[in-house]
């Protein structure tokens, strides 16, 4: 069985699914409790890469991953707690995956209602074999004052959290099958002047994965807990297990209990109460029988809810005094930027004053830093970008982009219109091959595909491999630019992407000698190798770079210079509107 202490020492949470209100309340809790940073380190949800939340009155972002597998190892290894807010249908698979992939996971809280019984039973087995505390289903959470609020427990609005006296550790544990009543009991305990050591809502399902008896044993083992308040209901036999633990001396701490459901005695066929478990099918499962058993074992059994308050109040020697920190007004900003901003009216680029950045960076270093969103130090990377930048600047007025710019310029259009007319042609057939090749090289190496299999797959689909093939150059007449690009690869520690691309070339050139690894394909491969060896980018990050068109950005920027040159050239030597002659167009009736 796990120890609550571990979570006091080290609470790093992953949210499985996303629930903005609950997540914000957890951040508010951390902030109000005086933690230095949010306990949530990752959110598993689709459709975005980060979510924005408030940390006190300012904003922070939390990283979002489409799948737990995509979370970097260093984060995964640090995670000790998971809050599962996925729908009931996905509880079993997502919880199993979390337990499997997170080596230091201690606790999972399951929020969803309507988890099938048989899935809960599977998770009971899993919790036992993997020694993970799984709380729920239908649990509003686990609260460890001062350290962790895992779930909605304790409230979802910061004024409620501020005033609830749940920010500092106390000595009374609260365990409840009901989510509403766990909060009511927290309120009762703190109202009389005690604090909470930890609180746990087990959920009202027929098979709670963590049983009341197990939760009470956690409280017994916790050295900060002096007394336990327990709320149970009719149905099931958990309370007999508790009575037995008391009898066996395994629960020695003072235990105050309320068992709900005496009203069921009114009916010949009692209605189904709010929780799935709350149905007494035999006499032993009635609230009265369970209360008797607990009383006999020595627990303090409240007959009315007011008795819980009375019993607690009796034991207070001195009401504790706690601080009540507040969070002021806050407003979401419209956008978040990691590139630049203004601090004290000075422009700041990547965390440094603009002037300082300008003085210490070459153009290539500044471009690469801004494109990657981090200050780049690697000389190798900078000199490669410098070279590529020059190499891509212009390939003559023949290509579609330059032609478009020229046509626009001659039509009398301004600089920006003519430049964008050229840029608009950049895509799958013109200029887009660097990005396309980068995607293919990473994906293939990631999947462990051999160059042979890779080429065959393309041949089957009838597709053109991006980065392969040139009009003029062949295997016997190599492209001098490719040769120059390759010299950068020689200097890097690893060059598996270039080796893969060359492997592909070795196969394609046997089919046709001009199917060589071209400039685009080489830039992609060498840049991937540099990013991996110099920046420690993993394959997921590399795929993301290609997804957001990082590799395309280099081409767009460099070639913009060429297009601009063509525009200025045309305007300087103005020839007037370009029009095709009938000879240039073959009209087919």
């Amino acid at each position, binding site marked *: 069985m796990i120890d609550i202490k571990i979570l006091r020492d080290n609470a790093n949470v992953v949210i499985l699914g996303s629930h903005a209100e609950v997540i914000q309340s957890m951040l508010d809790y951390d902030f109000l409790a005086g933690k230095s940073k949010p306990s949530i380190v990752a959110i598993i949800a689709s459709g975005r890469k980060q979510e924005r939340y408030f940390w006190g009155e300012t904003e922070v972002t939390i990283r979002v991953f489409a799948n737990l597998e995509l979370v970097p190892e260093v984060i995964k290894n640090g995670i000790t707690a998971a809050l599962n807010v996925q729908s009931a*249908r996905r509880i079993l698979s997502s919880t199993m995956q979390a337990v499997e992939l997170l080596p230091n996971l201690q606790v999972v809280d399951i929020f969803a209602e309507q988890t099938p019984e048989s899935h809960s039973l599977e998770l009971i087995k899993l919790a036992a074999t993997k020694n993970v505390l799984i709380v729920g289903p239908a649990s509003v959470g686990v609260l460890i004052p001062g350290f962790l609020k895992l779930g909605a427990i304790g409230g979802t609005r910061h004024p409620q959290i501020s005033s609830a006296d749940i920010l500092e550790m106390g000595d009374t544990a609260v365990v409840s099958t009901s989510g509403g*009543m766990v909060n*009511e009991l927290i309120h009762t305990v703190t109202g009389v002047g005690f604090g909470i050591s930890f609180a746990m809502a087990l959920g009202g399902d027929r098979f709670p994965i963590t049983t009341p008896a197990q939760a009470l044993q956690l409280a017994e083992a916790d050295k900060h807990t002096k007394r336990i308040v327990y709320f149970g209901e009719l149905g099931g036999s958990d309370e007999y297990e508790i009575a037995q633990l008391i009898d066996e001396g395994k629960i020695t701490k003072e235990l105050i209990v309320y068992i709900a459901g005496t009203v069921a005695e009114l009916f010949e066929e009692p209605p189904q109460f709010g929780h799935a478990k709350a149905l007494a099918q035999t006499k032993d499962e009635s609230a009265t029988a369970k209360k008797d058993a607990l009383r006999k074992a020595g627990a303090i059994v409240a007959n009315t809810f007011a008795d819980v308050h009375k019993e607690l109040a009796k034991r207070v020697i001195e009401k504790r005094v706690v601080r009540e920190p507040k969070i002021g007004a806050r407003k979401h900003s419209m956008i978040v930027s990691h590139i630049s901003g203004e601090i004290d009216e000075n422009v700041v680029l990547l965390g440094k004053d603009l002037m300082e950045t300008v003085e210490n960076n070459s153009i290539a270093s500044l471009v690469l830093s801004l494109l990657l969103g981090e200050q780049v130090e690697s000389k190798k990377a900078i000199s490669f970008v410098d070279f590529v930048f020059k190499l891509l600047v212009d390939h003559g007025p023949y290509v579609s982009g330059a032609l478009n710019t020229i046509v626009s310029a001659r039509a009398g259009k301004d600089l920006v219109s003519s430049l964008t007319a050229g840029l608009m042609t950049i895509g799958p057939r013109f200029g887009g091959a660097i990005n396309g090749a980068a995607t293919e090289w990473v994906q293939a190496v990631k999947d462990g595909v051999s160059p042979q299999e890779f080429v065959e797959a393309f041949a089957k689909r009838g597709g053109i491999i991006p980065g392969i093939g040139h009009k003029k150059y062949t295997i016997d007449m190599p492209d001098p630019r490719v040769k120059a690009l390759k010299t950068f690869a020689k200097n890097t520690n690893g060059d598996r992407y270039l080796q893969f691309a060359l492997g592909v070339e070795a196969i394609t050139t046997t089919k046709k000698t001009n199917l060589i690894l071209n400039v685009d394909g080489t830039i992609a491969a060498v840049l991937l190798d540099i990013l991996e060896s110099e920046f420690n980018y993993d394959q997921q990050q590399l795929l993301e770079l290609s997804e957001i068109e990082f590799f395309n950005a280099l081409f767009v920027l460099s070639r913009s210079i060429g297009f601009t040159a063509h525009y200025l050239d045309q305007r300087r030597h103005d020839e007037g509107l370009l029009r095709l002659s009938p000879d240039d167009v073959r009209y087919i009736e």
Partner: protein
Amino acid sequence: MPRRKLSEYRAKTLVNKAIGEDYVGWSILDLDDIKKVDGYKSYVVKVDQAVKGRFKKGLVLLNVEHKDLKTSAKQLMNEGYSSLLIEPYVEHVDQSERYFALNHGRGGYTIAYSRNGGVNVEQNADSIEYFAIDDGFDWENLATITNIETDKLQALVKLFKENHFASLEINPYVADRRSLNILDVAVEIDDAGQYFTRLWNESDIRSPRKLSESEEQIHVLNDNSPASFSLSVLNPNGSIFLLLSGGGASIVIADEVYNQGLGDELANYGEYSGNPNTEETYIYTNELIKLIVDSKAPNKILFIGGAVANFTDIAKTFAGIIHALDDQAAVLKKQHLKVYVRRGGPNQEIGLAKIKQALEGHGILGGVYAPDVSISDALGFALKGLKDEEK
């Protein structure tokens, strides 16, 4: 949310099919369905709802001739039952009836078996043997004991496992080495598993009794919402009405009424939870108001209550309640009704202030309490208010 009962028709169809036996029966939800019934001399007509003690209540009609089927069915439907089952009538022969049950629990799957099956099996509790199905379970041994072949036993477990059964009871059945005849089957399903099975759906689930119109409405509301709602009418002429939130708090509040000896006065039990929207609490409140108006009790109280919510928005949920109270203000005024409120949670200040203002305006304010007043105390004030009215 909980375990619910499968119709006898569906239960028998599934169990017989699983073990490769034939089953003849007709589910009757409409008198027109009787047209399909054919091929036998006489029949059994019975209520197919989760009613206990059908024989004692006269809800099983034996040896009905084909021409009388309609009259018999009408007779049962007139008692308020909507789901019937017709089966061929088989003369009861005194023979050795056996009991077989399958359940799952924290320890895995368990089979219960008794040689003394039939309606009185509970009185023969000592004769029931239990078999936990573990790795390396001795199926042959169980087959010898139960006279159900191994592959059939395994088929039953498979049916249970894959289709989110919560309990399966075959009681009684008659078996020798050559034949297996299942006489009655009861299956409880876990309705959370509906998404994962194709063998049953909502239309196969039976309620223990006929739902009142209000209960039916809330049932529909519950089925169509991510939040949850329940309502049971306990005493239509009761004087204490409950509009509660939270599975735990709602029982605590009902308990407190019962503990004070006022259980008979309880008109209803029910609760909403899971942060319903304003529209939904409006619908829920409207159904409760109908119950209040229909009750013949001279004085009435409505207790709107719950614990300190974790995430249910008090202002939002109360807005729907207030809207319904506003709509029916004129009617409620004539009811000798006082409304008491006790609730906490997100946005409680706004919610409580607004409901107090509304109740005051309509002249039905009993009291509005925040969490600094305990559930017990708030309810105490409400019950005292009711007693004072009666004086």
